[in-house]
């Protein structure tokens, strides 16, 4: 699903250039649930940004579902993001003046899906995350966990190839965190590919594979026995 070969990325800071990613080789198969771990400054967010086409790579290659991601202009990047990727952010990033259902329907709007179908799909995914009754509520009327579940429904709505989650439980207490992880695991069980950036070991343990980054290189890449979050819920 994802193939990364010899990926380099550096940022220019005045005269100096900061070498953040120093040759990453990394593949993800369909249906995997991967945790990317590392302390701050290890380059894990940069890697996620490149995977999410939010940032460009300097050297190496990145292939997503057989499509080479290279030299994309803004419009093309937007289209690929819409088609291939679903984002889940630490701070939810829901549009505050839109109801839960409207937020979920937004990626479909950019896919030019007809309105009726958008509403049906939005409701379907909200039902899947257990928030059908909250469809017409504004984000401000939802709890943190509920907001993140709306965000997950939104990421799912466009039926992307890969879900990218940047510290999805970072703003939640542990009980809610486990609820969200339970949901993510269930989505993964249906065959969706999911990448999670986290620095919490217990969250990482709920994935099927942990990739450890340090100073811009992968120091560890291992498959693990998944801990089911449902145990804690």
């Amino acid at each position, binding site marked *: 699903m994802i193939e990364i070969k010899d990926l380099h990325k550096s940022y220019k800071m005045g005269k100096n250039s900061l070498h953040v990613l120093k040759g990453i080789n990394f593949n993800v198969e369909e249906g995997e649930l991967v945790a990317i771990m590392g302390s701050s400054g290890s380059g894990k967010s940069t890697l996620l*940004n490149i995977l*999410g086409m*939010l*940032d460009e790579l300097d050297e190496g290659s990145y292939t997503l579902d057989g499509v080479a991601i290279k030299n994309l202009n*803004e*419009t093309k990047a*937007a*289209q690929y*993001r*819409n*088609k291939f990727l679903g*984002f889940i*952010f*630490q*701070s939810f*990033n*829901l*549009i505050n*003046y*839109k109801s839960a259902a*409207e937020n979920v329907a*937004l*990626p479909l*709007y*950019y*896919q030019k899906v007809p*309105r009726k179908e958008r509403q049906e799909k939005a409701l379907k995914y909200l039902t899947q995350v257990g928030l059908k009754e909250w469809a017409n509520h504004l984000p401000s009327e939802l709890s943190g966990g509920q907001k993140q579940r709306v965000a997950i429904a*939104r990421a799912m709505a*466009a039926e992307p190839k890969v879900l990218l989650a940047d510290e999805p439980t970072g703003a939640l207490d542990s009980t809610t965190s486990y609820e969200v992880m339970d949901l993510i695991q269930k989505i993964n069980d249906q065959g969706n590919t999911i990448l999670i950036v986290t620095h919490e070991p217990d969250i990482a343990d709920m994935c099927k594979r942990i990739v450890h980054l340090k100073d811009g290189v992968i120091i560890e890449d291992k498959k693990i026995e998944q801990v089911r979050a449902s145990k804690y819920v």
Partner: protein
Amino acid sequence: MFSRDNWREIFQTIQKNKLRTFLSGFTVALGILIFVVLFGFGNGLINTFQLFFEDDAQNIITFFPGQTTKPYKGYKSGRQIEFDRSDLADIEKNFPMFLEYVTPRIGRTYLTKFKNESNNYSTRGVAPSHQFAEKTIIMKGRYLDKLDILKKTKTAVIGRLVEKDLFGQEDAIGNYIDVGGSVFKVVGVYQDDGGDDEERRIYVPYTTLQLIEKNNDKVDQIIVAFKPELGYSGAMALEKSLSTFFKEKKYINPNDQNGIFIRNVAEGLKQTQQLARVLQLIVAFVAFGTIIAGIIGISNIMVFVVKERTKELGIRKALGATPKSVISTILLESIFITTISGVLGMLIGIAILGSLDKTLEDFFITDPYIDMPVAIFATLVLIIFGGVAGYIPAKRAARIKPIVALRDE
């Protein structure tokens, strides 16, 4: 780009962000409103100036006798110049091709009585053509005619307010009034756009006044109406040759400024038109400034709007919004708001101007108005510049990387 879905999205954004919508709409509406009202006031001022001059005919040169200040051909200085009937005849004889009519005017103030009512009125001895010079409008009866002059009849045409003062509800026509001790028959009642003073006058044949005053031959002023086709320069030339003619006839030193005084409406008219033009320019300048201020206002708001929406736009971009769709969302929204509020401001402004009508006449503003094309043009300019002002920050916003926009502060 103009699909129903798109508009639904825009309407929702407008509806859910009322303060923002109100701010930008209010700026535009106010800008256009002030522009329309200011421009209308300017036109009202010009109207007033034109009215001042429309009260009387505009092809008039009036000659007033004065006192000489220079000796000439054996005459001492300090001599009082007088006009008489022969001067009228001479003008008519010498300048027929330039003239529409010539009329004398003798001005007196007499105590005028009818039954128990009495008052002092300015009484003028004139010829029939004086009606055109003053633009006197006959309400009932008739004006003085040639026969009145010839037969020196004791007939009088009185102003609307004279009739009101002396006769109350009664009809003045056919009644006899006492003007300075002589009895005149009222043959006409007139009105005049020049205001109350001009409607408190009595016109009588100048020959009759001369007869009453010991049968003399003198007239106070000579009013000459030139043919309008002479134009400004023709009128000035005529004024000059008439002045030369009078000075020669009355033995006044050609360089004496005080022997005869001349008031040429053409000259005043030209000055007034110039003044009106300057006024129009000032008003246009101020109105232009208002539009500029409006453009700056809407630009500021657009920058603020885009800044405020940075995060939202970042989310939209992460979800697959192309730069084009980001720009078009912002632009369509701003153009929609500016168009609606611009047209609204324009209509309110026009309505205000229409309702003012004559109420501001005391401030020299009469019938303020704005030409529709001017109002529409100004509105369009504001809409277009509002769009341009929105486009620049929108384009910048579309280029922001979603990751930057989404970063937690």
